């Protein structure tokens, strides 16, 4: 082994230039990639070896220049100007060959920080389709660095790039632009201080100084571009006739003022149909499978506490959640296709005008649509919204979008509304489900508008967005996304669900004092068939779980819920999907003898007071509304805290959402009952 120290290289470049694809190709890791500028929002480090040299490689969020506008750009620029604990030995600058002029602007700025550089020209295949040909030797000569054509997607050109990574050392510095009036000897460190000063001054917001800075910087930027253009005029050729421009042909339909919106709505409609129609088959298999497991275990295990814990607590809890895996996989697949194809940015484009009215931004659409999968990564994705107020409002309202954790709850409740579903090409549940998602979206807009009126704003909102070329979604990439998301759902959500199920089983199986004994005593001489059921249901009522449910019953009675639903509401505050597991556990604890499918069990529940069905239309609608709006996810509150650096905003989020949920559920229940 070579005892040489680890060489630290950094991938820098414009958003969507393929840095993470290259990172994955070099390290064999699977960081999330897509055709959506701003997918990487944190710096990530991985390791690989070239011969015996160990290399650590850091992938940075893309930035258009060294003068950051958004939070994600600030992460990259801050790191490049002052890498602190991780000194940079070499920068591999990843540039999109199809848009070289703009990519080289950042290249020139990074080069002037004094780092040794290698230029990786990515996506040459796409550039060739646009009629662009680049003279590598000529470009390399003018820039004074090694230029490596690569195709990160197909892992072409990596060997040459690795060779360059080993070869280039700290002696390879080259100045690009020297119009800053700084003397040559300390050019690099001076340029660095100049930038640091500017970032600090921008924070101080002294209007006169800011204005002068903006003028200085923009003059410098223009000068850099003119120099870049001069270099490219000798090293790049553009054959306008060869430009096939596949993207523009698609966009003439997808960005059409009328068809564009139709296509968008149709896309959403198809997503919701698929979630119900296609997912139905695997869901039936899973349901049958878990029923079979519970029944088999019950007949074969010696009856006792442990058996009861497994068959009545853990298995229904897990089964009640695994069954929704097919729907979640379909949802994440479709979202990944939208991102990877490049369509997501078009959605931002056509919705910006509408979103602006509500205090949001076209870029808010990405977190909002992502919020249909999960609010946590979506809130983090809001980092590429440059305007602080737009971003804060986006963070606050994103959890109102119906996330995948609500999907199991909706599905269960909808199945109660349509016990007998007639076969037709449109699944009515799919239509109502789409309605639930639209309701979440409408509430998000409503509250965005309210926050827009309340919150004060200094900077002006703007929308400057690159629309990348369309690309064929990468199957491998989508499969990794699904694997990660499905794994996350099963293991992380699964952990909470099993824990909650076990705790719940204990709470439901024990009572303070000798209450259970008294019930047994009461029924000692009772001989009718429903003896076991009666004992169980009275036991649940006096158990610890029953006490919790009864305690909150007064608060939820106006919404049409009884104390059993109350228990599920309480446990849902760990995570929404726990509702299904809890309901499964509660009712199976109450009726130990049948392992019927859950919705049939629920449909047969009667209200104790008047013997009417407990899950009536009014109750089910009220529950749907409550789950649509209430803030019942601690992880989301935690990420809001992390992104806003303030305890105030998660609290605001919790109270406005839950208060609104209570109010709306109350209104719905009173109207329909």
């Amino acid at each position, binding site marked *: 082994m070579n005892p040489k120290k680890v060489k630290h290289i950094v991938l820098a470049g414009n958003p969507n230039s393929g840095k993470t694809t290259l990172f994955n190709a070099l390290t064999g890791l699977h960081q999330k990639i897509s055709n959506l500028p701003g997918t990487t929002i944190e710096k990530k480090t991985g390791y690989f070896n070239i011969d015996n040299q160990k290399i650590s490689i850091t992938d940075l969020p893309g930035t258009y220049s060294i003068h950051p506008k958004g939070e994600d750009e600030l992460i990259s620029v801050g790191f490049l100007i002052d890498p602190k604990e991780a000194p940079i030995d070499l920068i591999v600058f990843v540039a999109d060959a199809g848009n070289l002029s703009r990519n080289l602007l950042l290249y020139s700025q990074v080069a002037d920080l004094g780092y040794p550089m290698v230029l990786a020209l990515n996506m040459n295949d796409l550039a060739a389709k646009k009629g662009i040909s680049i003279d590598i030797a000529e470009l390399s000569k003018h820039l004074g660095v090694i230029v490596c054509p690569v195709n990160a997607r197909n892992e072409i050109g990596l060997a040459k790039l690795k060779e360059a990574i080993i070869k280039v050392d700290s002696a390879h510095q080259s100045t690009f632009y020297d119009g800053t009036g700084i003397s040559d000897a300390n050019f690099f460190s001076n340029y660095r201080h100049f930038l640091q000063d500017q970032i600090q001054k921008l924070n101080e917001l002294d209007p006169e100084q800011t204005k002068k800075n*903006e003028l200085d910087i*923009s003059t410098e930027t223009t000068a850099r571009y003119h120099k870049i253009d001069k270099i490219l005029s000798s090293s790049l050729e553009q054959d306008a006739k060869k430009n096939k421009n596949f993207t523009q042909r698609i*966009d003439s339909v997808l960005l059409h003022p009328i068809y564009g919106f139709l296509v968008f709505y149709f896309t959403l409609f198809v997503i919701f149909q698929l979630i119900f129609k296609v997912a139905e088959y695997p869901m039936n298999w899973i349901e049958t499978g878990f029923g079979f497991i519970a029944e088999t275990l019950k007949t074969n295990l010696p009856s006792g506490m442990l058996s009861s814990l497994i068959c009545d607590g853990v298995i229904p809890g897990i089964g009640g959640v695994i069954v929704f895996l097919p729907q979640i996989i379909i949802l994440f697949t479709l979202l990944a296709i939208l991102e990877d194809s490049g369509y997501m940015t078009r959605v931002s484009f056509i919705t*910006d005008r509408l979103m602006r009215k509500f205090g949001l931004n076209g870029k808010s659409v990405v977190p909002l649509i992502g919020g249909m999968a999960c609010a946590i990564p979506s809130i983090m994705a809001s980092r590429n919204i440059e305007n602080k107020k737009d971003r804060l409002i986006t963070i606050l309202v994103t959890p109102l979008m119906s996330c995948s954790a609500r999907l199991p709850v909706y599905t269960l409740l909808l199945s109660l509304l349509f016990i007998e579903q007639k076969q037709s090409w449109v699944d009515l549940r799919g239509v109502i489900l789409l309605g639930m998602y639209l309701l979440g979206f409408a509430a998000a807009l409503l509250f965005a508008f309210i926050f827009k009126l309340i919150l004060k704003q200094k900077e002006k909102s703007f929308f*400057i967005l690159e629309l990348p070329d369309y690309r064929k979604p990468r199957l491998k990439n989508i499969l990794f996304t699904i694997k990660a998301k499905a794994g996350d759902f099963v293991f992380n959500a699964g952990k909470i669900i099993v824990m909650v199920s076990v705790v719940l089983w204990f709470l439901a199986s024990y009572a303070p004092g000798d209450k259970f004994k008294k019930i047994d005593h009461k029924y000692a001489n009772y001989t009718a068939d429903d003896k076991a059921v009666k004992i169980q249901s009275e036991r649940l009522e006096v158990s610890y779980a029953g006490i919790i449910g009864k305690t909150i019953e007064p608060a939820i009675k106006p919404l049409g819920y009884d104390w059993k639903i109350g228990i599920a509401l309480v446990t849902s505050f760990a995570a929404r999907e726990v509702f299904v597991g809890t309901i499964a556990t509660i009712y199976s604890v109450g009726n130990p003898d049948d392992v019927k499918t859950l919705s049939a069990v629920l449909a047969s529940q009667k209200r104790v007071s008047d013997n009417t069905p407990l899950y009536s239309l009014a109750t089910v609608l009220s529950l749907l509304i409550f789950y649509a709006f209430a803030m019942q996810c601690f992880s989301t509150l935690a990420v809001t805290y992390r992104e806003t650096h303030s305890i105030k905003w998660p609290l605001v989020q919790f109270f406005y959402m839950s208060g609104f949920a209570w109010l709306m559920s109350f209104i719905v229940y009173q109207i329909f009952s």
Partner: protein
Amino acid sequence: MNASELKQGDTAVIHHVEFSDLRNKLIEMGCFEGNKIKRLYTAPLGDPIAFDINGYILALRKEEAKLIEITLKKIES
């Protein structure tokens, strides 16, 4: 004339970006003096607008497009 007044499909040459907080940002995105700009698409209700800037698509709000001063260019497609 500014970029928001450009007709669908027309090409022009940028000659100046007006002073604002976004001046440098717009220049960075390729709206520098001498570069070509072509109007490609308009979102519903006339805003935002997508332009071709030297081979890539940039979407801007009307307000931002107004900051970009242009000269019409009668040229090849």
